[in-house]
């Protein structure tokens, strides 16, 4: 049994009276590619946002390599209006900002690409190196960190070469074609030296050819960088092809989990995606 990387326990995210993620528990183990699927509005991206610190979950806990990363319980006004489960189980509030979570080793990409669009490809990746640098404002301003800056630049160039983006390094990121922006976003996430990579619909807007290339690419980076990958995706061929295990989310609740074969034959999943006729 390989080590557990990400463990999500009883995570509930409630906005006003709407429960977007309802008591979600899941696990991702080292070296796996795990997919989170579900119909539109099922709460997949919200779940990602809870893991990466964009939202503070209303209730529940997220651990990373056995260490607690995020924990919260209903507090303030939510104390009265909370309608989720496991209300009294969690009693601590640990709410790091997204940058702390990235520093811990979880990197992510976004559903709608979020590059630094006025900066060059090289700078986009170089930014990710800022986090782990030892410099401070004074040493950086007066170039006392010369060696470190040089190392950051070399590592960035190295990464761009490995991702075959080095010929574009001086292009402005916002002017690149869509497919390359996607790849750049993944490259940028890799530059933060993550152990776990969260991909939010990486194949959105890609044609079948590009999707196939992406599938190979995801496998390749997992092996090259010894990553664990957790992915949200709509393209079923992609998901079924690359993932070791799947979680299916519907209306915020976990509907099913299992290997691709199991999920493909699960009647509840098929119903959730295709809908059930009420008079049947």
């Amino acid at each position: 049994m390989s080590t557990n990387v990400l463990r999500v326990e009883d995570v509930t995210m409630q906005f006003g009276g709407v429960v977007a993620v309802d008591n979600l528990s899941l696990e991702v183990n080292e070296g796996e590619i795990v997919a989170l699927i579900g119909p539109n509005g099922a709460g997949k991206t919200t779940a990602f946002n809870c893991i990466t610190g964009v939202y503070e979950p209303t209730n529940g806990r997220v651990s990373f390599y056995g260490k607690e990363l995020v924990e919260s319980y209903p507090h303030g006004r939510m104390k009265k209006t909370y309608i989720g489960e496991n209300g009294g189980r969690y009693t601590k509030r640990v709410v790091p900002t997204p940058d702390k979570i990235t520093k811990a080793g979880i990197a992510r990409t976004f559903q709608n690409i979020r590059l630094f669009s006025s900066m060059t490809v090289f700078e986009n990746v170089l930014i990710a190196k800022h986090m782990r640098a030892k410099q401070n404002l004074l040493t950086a301003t007066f170039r006392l960190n010369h060696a470190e800056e040089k190392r950051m630049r070399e590592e960035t160039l190295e990464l761009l070469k490995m991702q075959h983006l080095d010929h574009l390094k001086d292009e402005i990121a916002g002017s690149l074609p869509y497919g390359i922006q996607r790849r750049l976003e993944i490259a940028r996430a890799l530059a933060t030296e993550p152990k776990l990579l969260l991909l939010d619909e990486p194949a959105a807007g890609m044609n079948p050819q590009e999707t196939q290339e992406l599938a190979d690419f995801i496998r390749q980076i997992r092996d090259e960088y010894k990553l664990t990958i957790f992915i949200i995706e709509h393209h079923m061929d992609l998901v079924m092809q690359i993932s070791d295990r799947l979680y299916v989310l519907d209306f915020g609740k976990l509907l099913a989990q299992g290997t691709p074969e199991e999920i493909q034959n699960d009647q509840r999943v098929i119903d959730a995606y295709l809908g059930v006729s009420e008079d049947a």
Partner: protein
Amino acid sequence: MGKKRNMILGALLLLAAILAIVILEKQLPPTHIALMVLKKGCIYSLVAVSMNLLNGFTGLFSLGQAGFMLVGAYAYAVLTIPVEARGSVYMYFDGGIINFSVPMLVGLLASGLAALLFAWLIGLPVLRLKSDYLAIATLGFAEIIRAFFQWDKLGVITNGSNMLRKYPTFNSTLFPFIASAICIGIIVLMIHSSYGRAFRAIRDDEVAAEAMGINLAKHKRMSFCVSSFFAGIGGGLLAMYQGSIQAAAFKSAMTYEILLIVVIGGLGSVTGSCIASFLFIASSEWWLRFLDSEMTIGNFKVPFLRAGFRKVVFSVIIMLIVLFARKGIMGDHEFSIDGICRFFRNLGKKKEVKS
């Protein structure tokens, strides 16, 4: 090779500018308007660049610049008034409670540090706000500071609403030029460092910047404090330039002037801010002066020309710039030697048209 050449050319340009200033000072009477414009232009360049760091590079829309300049100006004046002159300056407050004075350069540094301290304190609550709300909050802060410094109870330090004067000033135009150049140089170095990149990342996309491990609160505060530090020094220099200061002069109109300079020069362009501040000061104080006096050509009396008309024309020019050149003079590009070389090379190519 290109880098070395650029550095040499840059140094030569700087030397030429200093030489030009020295010659101008020798040739013109010391009160000539050109020298005034140069001095004030240098100071405004510094303040505009510091505001550009915040508004153009970090994407924080702050309107507190006049407030930080005021803090800087007062810190400089209060600390540097000679002990023997304090009696006459603080005549309503028994000579004030400060009975020491520091040298000019220490005072200038203190003006920056004082502004930085205020910025740090104000940044704690204010930097949680975004866009327009941040602008409103910082504008409010600047107004509060202005009232606060005129408060009677603080008169022993700030001289209440009375003027502060008799502190050391500069005579030479070189002083504000060199002081501003050093400060702008430091800002440029910072913008091109890893932190500058982080600031620009925050401007482009806060959520993504955070996902890249950039601590938003820390970096925003950093940018805010650095910007205020240099605004404070700009305020100190302005105090020196004017010879006497009064809190009532640091109105929000001053912030708007600087904001205009930043926008005209181009958000995110340091050289744009510098060029724009000289143009702005020159046209508002000098080149458009003729519009204020009546003029007759032969028997024809030119209509409209009277005191105050200058401001009307000036406003129209600014409106035209905002309407037709929304990105300002430089956009987000920088004025560089390479750029000029490229420009001339392209000109040459167009003439030759060889394949």
